């Protein structure tokens, strides 16, 4: 019984390590075959449309609502300490440092990441990938790398849009609806948010998340068994794995960026 369990555990670990190695190799291959994505940039533009433009609506709407909630909750909390004027700073800092990059990445993973996995998985299941290989066209360069770079480019832009919409939402609730002084809202925000320290670090975060989410999504799609269950399982794994990876990386990056304060 114990031997059985140990064997099972060992099997799982060996599998996990093997998959990690396979995924790293896949990632290196994406980078290696990235030349085409930039030499023939229209390939990447096509993917920018399907991952970036198609995610716009959800990002804009979600950003606005998150900002509005931050405005309401922040006001309720700050009121107790008599510092409602810090609302702008609170809303902007939470968005720019954390919520913008993280929530935008989570939404991106479930909106665009899952679509990428399903698309690649289906291309594989219907032998489109094999067909491409038989035509002497490298699917890594032609199919995978442009999607990767489109994701990496989209992610910081979407995150910036999310944060900007969030600040707008916080402004609507805080200033327009509740009546926090407009001048102190903006000035506290500007005093509290540092360009390099907060905004640039937030952008770095979302760039890292973009790399992680698209790499996971593409790998899962490419690795999916060519069946209906295989593709649906891979899509689920993409969302689960990238969400966990985003939160884990967020912790690591935050620890490095905002340490010693």
């Amino acid at each position, binding site marked *: 019984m114990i031997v059985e369990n140990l064997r099972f555990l060992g099997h799982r670990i060996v599998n996990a390590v093997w998959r990690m190695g396979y995924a790293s190799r896949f990632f290196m291959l994406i980078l290696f075959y990235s030349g085409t994505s930039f030499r023939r940039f229209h390939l990447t533009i096509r993917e920018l449309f399907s991952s970036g433009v198609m995610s716009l609506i959800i990002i804009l709407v979600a950003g606005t609502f998150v900002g509005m909630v931050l405005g309401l909750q922040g006001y309720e909390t700050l009121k107790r300490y008599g510092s409602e004027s810090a609302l702008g700073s609170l809303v902007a800092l939470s968005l720019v440092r954390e919520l913008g990059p993280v929530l935008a990445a989570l939404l991106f993973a479930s909106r665009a990441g899952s679509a990428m996995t399903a698309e690649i998985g289906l*291309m594989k299941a219907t032998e489109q990938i094999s067909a491409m290989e038989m*035509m002497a066209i490298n699917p890594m360069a032609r199919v995978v790398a442009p999607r990767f770079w489109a994701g990496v480019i989209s992610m910081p832009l979407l995150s910036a849009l999310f944060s900007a919409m969030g600040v707008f939402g916080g402004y609507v609730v805080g200033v327009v609806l509740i009546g926090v002084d407009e001048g102190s809202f903006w000035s506290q925000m500007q005093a509290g948010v540092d360009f390099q320290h907060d905004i640039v670090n937030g952008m770095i975060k979302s760039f890292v998340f973009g790399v992680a989410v698209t790499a996971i999504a593409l790998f899962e799609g490419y690795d999916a068994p060519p069946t209906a269950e295989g593709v649906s399982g891979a899509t689920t794994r993409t969302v689960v794995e990238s969400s966990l990876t985003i939160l884990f990386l967020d912790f690591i990056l935050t620890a490095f960026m905002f340490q010693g304060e």
Partner: protein
Amino acid sequence: MSSQALVEIRDVNFAYDSRPILKGVNLTFPKGKVIAVMGGSGCGKTTLLQLIGGALKPSGGYVKVDGQVIHELDHKGLYHMRRRMGMLFQFGALFTDMSVYDNVAFQMREHTDLPEEIIRDLVLMKLHAVGLRGTHHLMPAELSGGMARRVALARTVALDPMLVMYDEPFAGLDPISLTVVGNLIRRLNDALGATSVVVTHDVQESLKIVDYIYFIADGVVVAEGTPAEISTSDKPFVHQFVHGEMDGPVPFHYPGGDYGQDLNLRPGR
């Protein structure tokens, strides 16, 4: 077999993990001919095509195409070789995110520097050859199964390959489409001066269009010959296959022990 051989397959062995698929097969595809490779499902026909295309490596023996051993080619050499091959996949494998036009133009755009006007003419010519010039603006999802197969055929021969491989070109087609595709395979082969390999289990259709037939079973070539020889053959396997009989050398029952025992029938009851 008078003319020169384009593809030579010699003593090829292949195994997935430890499960042997091919056990020393020898086939020769002469230039300009249409050859059928037949056998039951799962006998290694598709594996054979993948070996020719270089997607798999044989564990023994070699596959030679146009004088070059496929598994000894490096990445560049293999890709160069593949440009001169075309392969029609089982269900066409059209790129679903591109129009019919873009599908056929795909290889021309990827592999040549031809100006767009010439590509346009070439694409329309290829589509005309399969009788679907009018569909060039449609998406693959808007085509019927038979039409999709014909578009895939046009895409396969887009760069005028010297070797065209067909993986189950007749699977899932209605009788009319089946005849159309069958005739197209023959006509395109003769028009291009290419060599075609048709992997199929559709005996009646292939007997009409091919020059030579190989039968594969259990990883070895069990019979070969011209269509006339095959249809009159009295080998039990070929006879069963050609006439579609239920039981014969290929048994109806998967080996499963004693039937009575499985049903818990005890003798004397």
